[in-house]
């Protein structure tokens, strides 16, 4: 029986088998951010231990820094301590820091692949659940807590139990106006927020192969919202072309040797996965969440579920609570719901291709009165590239605020919050209770759908705008 892509990378990184399905696994790259990185370095220093391999570690502030134009590391005062701790402790440990205002700084899961720090076939950890994003280039990447992060800093390994494997095959062609974000929300809506618990997921099929690399990063980003710690797409020629020339990727002959290896990183045709799911990509439409779990995802032209029709008492109670929190009524159409805020950004949807897709809808339109709309690029390099193409002007002319790179309103750990009871269409990844601020109401959507909401002032199927433009 053949091996999966996941098995191939896992097996190649086993330092020692620990028994009972556990392995001591080598960590090839460790990324640190301001919220969890500084404390992990402090914990290590407190134990009197050095960083095992500082050259394999990189740091950037993203969670608790302000995205306000002209900001520095201390603009958001409570985050200033975290920023300074990351800077000082990285310097003391010999860890490279990509600091605020410097090329390379950005949301950790945006800057990692962008700089070529993350590569196919590498094991990558970060004290952040969305580390699975990096699976979009074929890395075995996963989020860890602070204790595991400290362990990885001290030993350059982790003690891990091998997960089961799942393949999600997406065949068919995504329709006009339908993106990787819609596909991911559709999958979570269909399979549920706990479907991936205990699994490593490989996305495959013609619709996944057809995705550009940045869209694969978006797809893999939402894997943790499906319950899985690992999500990945096999690297291919698109991946290789996308990585060529990135500053921290191997260069010249070393790159070609690496690429030859990356081409072998595939699941064998006769591989048996522990679980297989299939998705008809052609049937996916623009998708949005209505409730307080990413599994509360429906087609934008569908009606909000009615708790009276729930299959179980547990679902009925969960839906009722979600509707009350969101200020919505079961059975009503989702489209047409008035919105107050629009947020375009986050490790899900803040790359150059996302901003281009958003700008394509924003161009020649204007943000509706009473809507506040922000665009927060994912990294300093994304910001500069977008400005070089004039995208910032498109957004500003349309009434969007153009801001500095960071996690901003996705995580609300930086003073940037959706006000209580305000409704926000957001390109981020979590619509949890209080995620974007106490009592904030979040609807997850693609960048194009977020712009459609901003310019109409309501939840709107972006396909109705594209058809008329």
């Amino acid at each position, binding site marked *: 029986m053949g091996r999966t892509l996941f098995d191939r990378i896992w097996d190649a990184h086993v330092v020692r088998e620990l028994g009972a399905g556990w392995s001591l696994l*080598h960590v090839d790259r460790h990324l640190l951010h301001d919220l969890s990185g500084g404390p992990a370095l402090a914990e290590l220093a407190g134990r009197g231990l050095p960083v095992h391999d500082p*050259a394999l570690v990189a740091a950037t502030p993203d969670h608790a820094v302000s995205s306000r134009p002209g900001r520095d590391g201390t603009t958001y005062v*409570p985050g200033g301590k975290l920023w300074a701790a990351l800077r000082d402790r990285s310097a003391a440990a010999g860890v490279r820091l990509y600091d605020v205002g410097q090329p390379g700084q950005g949301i950790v899961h945006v800057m990692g692949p962008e700089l070529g720090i993350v590569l196919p076939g590498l094991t990558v950890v970060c004290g952040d659940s969305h580390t699975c994003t990096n699976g979009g280039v074929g890395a075995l990447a996963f989020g860890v807590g602070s204790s595991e992060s400290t*362990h990885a800093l001290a*030993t350059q390994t982790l003690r891990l139990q091998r997960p089961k494997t799942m393949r999600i095959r997406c065949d068919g062609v995504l329709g006009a106006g339908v993106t990787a974000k819609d596909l991911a929300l559709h999958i979570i809506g269909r399979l549920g927020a*706990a479907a991936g618990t205990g699994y490593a997921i490989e996305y495959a099929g013609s619709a996944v192969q057809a995705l550009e690399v940045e869209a694969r990063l978006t797809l893999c980003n939402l894997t943790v919202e499906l319950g899985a710690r690992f999500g990945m797409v096999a690297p291919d020629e698109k991946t290789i072309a996308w990585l060529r020339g990135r500053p921290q990727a191997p*260069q010249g002959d070393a790159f070609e040797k690496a690429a030859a290896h990356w081409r072998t990183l595939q699941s064998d045709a006769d591989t048996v996965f522990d679980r297989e799911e299939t998705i008809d990509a052609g049937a996916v439409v623009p998708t949005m969440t209505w409730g307080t779990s990413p599994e509360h995802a429906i087609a934008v032209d569908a009606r909000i579920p009615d708790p009276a029709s729930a299959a179980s008492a547990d679902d009925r109670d969960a839906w009722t609570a979600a509707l009350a929190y969101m200020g919505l009524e079961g059975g009503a159409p989702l489209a047409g719901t008035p919105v107050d805020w629009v947020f375009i950004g986050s490790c899900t949807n803040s790359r150059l291709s996302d901003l281009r897709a958003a700008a394509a809808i924003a161009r020649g339109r204007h943000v509706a009165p009473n809507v506040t709309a922000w665009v927060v690029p994912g990294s300093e390099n994304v910001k500069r590239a977008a400005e070089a193409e004039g995208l910032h002007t498109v957004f500003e002319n349309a009434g969007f605020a153009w801001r500095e790179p960071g996690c901003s309103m996705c995580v609300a750990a930086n003073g940037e919050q959706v006000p209580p009871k305000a409704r926000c269409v957001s390109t981020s990844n979590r619509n949890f209770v209080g995620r974007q601020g*106490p009592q904030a109401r979040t609807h997850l959507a693609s960048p194009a759908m977020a712009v459609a909401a901003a310019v109409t002032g309501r939840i709107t199927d972006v396909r109705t705008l594209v058809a008329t433009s």
Partner: protein
Amino acid sequence: MSMQPFTAVNGRAAPFLRANVDTDVIIRIERLTSLQKDQLGPFALEAVRFRADGSEDPDCVFNQPTFRGAPFVLAGPNFGCGSSREGAVWALQGLGIRSVIAPSYGDIFYSNCFQNGVLPIRLPLAQIEALAAQCADGAPITVDLEKKTIVAPDGTSIAFAIDPLRREALLHGLDDIGLTLKDDALIRAWQAKDRSARPWAWPAPRT
């Protein structure tokens, strides 16, 4: 990183069976930017325990005299999903919780529990609901990790499964870093071999 061992604990079990309780709800991220790990208990589950005006919600199970300070939570599916923040475990510990009993967990939260001496037990939902009915008046249960059993208020013993390595580490409060550093020679040997097998995987020296 001292870890509190878990052997056997007796006490009340608070029923909190909603599905998909995420770590953002367990501890707000803003609390983690300003507080130390031992200061989080008062802010655990604040969206659940407190009303919008900041006062305690008397209807919330964790505020009822019967369950305040209970060492166990009887929880619903996918407990601790979402963010990797280990502060979620610290916050629950701050509330006095030693063990969570749920049908399933977020994978990262599940690992984080073991790093801090909190025992996450998996049981089928029907068994948890039956336990919740028995514990509704505050009748105590005993969770025994040595025996891998939960003794219910009516005296019945419910067996639970747990990975043997995780059980061992929790029983003895073992420190993972100390264990792994014993293998440091192996780690360095693996690295030396990998540097020649995959030179591209190793960053060029910084200039």
